[in-house]
């Protein structure tokens, strides 16, 4: 196995162009090392950890920008993230174990493109963008179209995710990430649901709501029919119940060792209801009645 530590994005892209499908990018290593030990070694490993411009969290132009090499622990302990992006903070603190959070990067979690990836549904509901570098230039890709299937994303084999650009939601908006798993830490989610809700100025109706569903389809999903059902209405108990059932119908889960498809739909229903109740209360100060 060949091994490289490029010092710049340009050097990394040259290596990816030259080695094509033989090349594997490694950052934290928490997924890639397992593949190396249990599946097969790539022909060439490109360690991007030494590229200084890929780390850090900053705020500019109404957006938070998170470098691809930022660790999950750095996100979890960052005051800006906690204050402005609670749905992402909530997911980062439920991510694996402390040891893994200290090493795993957000760029790695995204490019792994696992439908259960903890940070993915929060990025869908935040309507964030992936900043991708290619040898012929840079482009921004919304996460809504970034994920193409398990392990497949818009970065492809020759691109590099450099930064995540997240528009900061209005202060009145509230978000939660709810995860269902057997073991509190470490377990891969059976289902993850991200909910972000913004009430209208009078705090009497849902102005905007976004629902992200994880581990219930080939990619993380939004639930557009459920969102449309809720917009412009006061959040009543009957509406929450209807929304939960609709969200379950929008999921397309499979049966695997972690859960049956049927069980996953029930959990989507329960977590969607719970997410709506929690965000409504946080945003309006009122219980769903």
């Amino acid at each position: 196995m060949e091994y490289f530590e490029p010092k710049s994005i340009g050097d990394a892209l040259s290596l990816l162009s030259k080695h094509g499908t033989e090349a594997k990018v490694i950052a934290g290593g928490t997924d890639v090392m397992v593949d190396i030990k249990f599946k097969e070694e790539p022909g060439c490993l490109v360690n991007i950890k030494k590229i200084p411009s890929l780390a850090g969290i900053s705020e500019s132009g109404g957006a938070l920008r998170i470098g691809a090499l930022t660790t999950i622990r750095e996100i979890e302990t960052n005051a800006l993230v906690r204050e402005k992006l609670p749905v992402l903070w909530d997911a980062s603190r439920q991510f694996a174990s402390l040891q893994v959070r200290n090493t795993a990067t957000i760029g790695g979690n995204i490019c792994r493109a696992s439908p259960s990836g903890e940070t993915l549904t929060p990025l869908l509901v935040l309507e964030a963008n992936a900043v991708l570098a290619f040898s012929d230039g840079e482009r921004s890709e919304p996460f809504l179209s970034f994920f193409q299937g398990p392990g497949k994303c818009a970065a492809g084999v020759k691109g590099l995710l450099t930064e995540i650009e997240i528009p900061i939601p209005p202060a009145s908006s509230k978000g939660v990430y709810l995860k269902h798993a057997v073991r509190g830490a470490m377990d891969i989610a059976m289902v993850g649901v991200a909910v972000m809700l913004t009430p209208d100025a009078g705090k009497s109706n849902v102005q905007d709501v976004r629902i992200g569903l994880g581990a219930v389809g080939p990619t993380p999903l939004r639930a557009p029919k459920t969102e449309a059902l809720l917009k412009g209405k006061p959040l009543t108990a009957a509406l929450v119940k209807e929304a939960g059932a609709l969200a379950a119908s929008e999921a397309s889960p499979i049966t695997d060792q972690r859960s049956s498809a049927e069980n996953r739909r029930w959990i989507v229903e329960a977590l969607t209801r719970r997410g709506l109740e929690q965000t409504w209360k946080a945003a309006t100060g009122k219980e769903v009645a």
Partner: protein
Amino acid sequence: MSVMINTTINGQAVSASCEASTSLLEFLRDTLEMKGSKLCCNTGECGACTVIYNGKPINACVTLAADANGAKITTIEGLADGDKLHPVQQAFIDTGAVQCGYCTPGYIMSVKALLDRTKKPTQADIEEAVSGNICRCTGYNKIVDAIHLAASKL
């Protein structure tokens, strides 16, 4: 292809080469013959290989050995001062928090990192700190007792 690793382990400068695909755990155990950090799941799920990397607990099994270059690493072998055990090690013995013992070095490194971060950990801090460590003998209550005892002595 082989890579050269220049790192600091338990305060000692170490230089050795290994295959590029070597994990930090394999580097410690097989290249350096330091067998204190345990190989168990090898997937980053059980915490038996926990070491402290630049002040933070990490799983050595899913860390590339090459990432040790320029880093400061503390392993279980670096805790005792001669024959005098570290207070966390002594607390595990005094409370009977060791059964088969295979998970113990990993737990002790997670707890050492916790007590380096905070002198007075809450129950929630403790649960977070060791949530990535598994004890298959299931002796969790005694381990939590040991952590409280160690915190009271530091």
